[in-house]
């Protein structure tokens, strides 16, 4: 993390209104455009933006953490994930309302934070793999059929693709398990 990003995150975590306002002016339009173009409304973008800000500040206050990209990009990913979570949770509620009945707003926010931490651990390790493995697994996680991956990546058979994905996934799992954060996040 560059010192500028570090300073910015640390400044924001102090929770001063003027710093938050400057950040709003800089980043909210981009988040709003993304949510509105993905089945949301401006009011949804406002909710997500506020939740993301609170999440980042609370996390940083608990344990200062490092980010390897620009803070704006990082924050946008947090918002994008919260929106993905929101869309998927609406789907879940439609079918499994009973299982979600006992979750309070605070609990839900706590879950959203650990889920983001888990996402960061997984994506960080995915980025450490070779370019070929990274591309293969990205397609695999997007549930792309083996035949399409075969054609796209120029493999001779689906079986070769399957074996290659298995090896890459095994390497990814090893990297994830070696990281100390995994122990903290695995049973959540």
């Amino acid at each position: 993390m560059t010192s500028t990003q570090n300073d910015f995150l640390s400044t924001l975590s102090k929770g001063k209104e003027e710093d938050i306002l400057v950040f709003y002016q800089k980043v909210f339009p981009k988040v709003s455009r993304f949510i509105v173009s993905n089945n949301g409304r401006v009011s949804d973008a406002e909710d997500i933006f506020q939740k993301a800000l609170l999440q980042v500040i609370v996390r940083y206050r608990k344990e200062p953490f490092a980010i390897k990209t620009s803070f704006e990009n990082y924050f946008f990913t947090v918002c994008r994930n919260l929106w993905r979570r929101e869309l998927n949770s609406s789907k879940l509620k439609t079918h499994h309302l009973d299982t979600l009945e006992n979750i309070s707003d605070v609990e839900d926010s706590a879950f959203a934070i650990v889920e983001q931490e888990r996402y960061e651990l997984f994506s960080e390790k995915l980025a450490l793999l070779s370019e070929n493995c990274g591309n293969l697994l990205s397609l695999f996680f997007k549930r792309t059929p083996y035949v399409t991956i075969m054609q796209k990546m120029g493999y001779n058979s689906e079986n070769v693709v399957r074996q290659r994905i298995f090896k890459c996934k095994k390497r990814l799992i090893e990297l994830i398990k070696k990281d100390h954060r995994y122990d903290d996040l695995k049973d959540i």
Partner: protein
Amino acid sequence: MMEDNILIEQYLKGTLTDAQKTAFLKRLESNAVFKAQVQLEEQMLAALGETHWSFANNTSHARVEAYKQLLESEETQLVKSTIANAHEAYKISQENKSKATNPIFKLRIVASIAAIFMILISIFWFFSTDTNTIDYKAIATKAWKKDVGLDFTVRNGTVDSTKVNLAKALQLYKNKEYSQAIASLQKYSNTSSHYKDILVVRALSYHKLQKTSVALQTLDSLRAYTPRISQWYKGLIYLEKNKLEKAALYIHIPTKENQEIKLK
């Protein structure tokens, strides 16, 4: 026998046969290492797959508990209200910006200067002026007190057990025993009589327990039976959460102090 990696993949894709799935679930129950492996692969698929999301559900986990405490702390509540204030300030600055760049607005400025003169004169004619600050909290409290949809009564000697239980649940709700109110209505489903009233008591109890998303979801279910009551409470809940834009989708929010909230 199928290799584990293929087996897990087919399970996550939902392509196992019924017999294979039964055996798979049985193995999950009895083999902790296998269960952890499946869980990790499931989480990776959901988290890195863009269209899905990997939800956590272990409420008693130490990390979740630590975040819950932090989120409930006074300092976090303070940050929350600072964020809300910054949000309001941002909205006002955006409104002013769009007005300033609008040519019609520039013409309006000229007209406004002329109008100021008229306003100054008119001030002399009024002994008091309306305040622009509306106490939404007070207006909302008044609206909540109307107890819309909670007017079901039970006559002495009634044999309708659902209605009797409903009245008891309402009493629990009024006594602020919200969890008990919900528990007392748990056995009822959409085939029960008075289901509309059951949903109202459930939704309001969830709201009071700060389980906002479940309260709103329950009100969505209520919409099929009585859209007006569903709309009324969704509006009030959003208003209470200070989400005026969302509240305005369901209710008319007063623009003057002496007005009341009305349904849209």
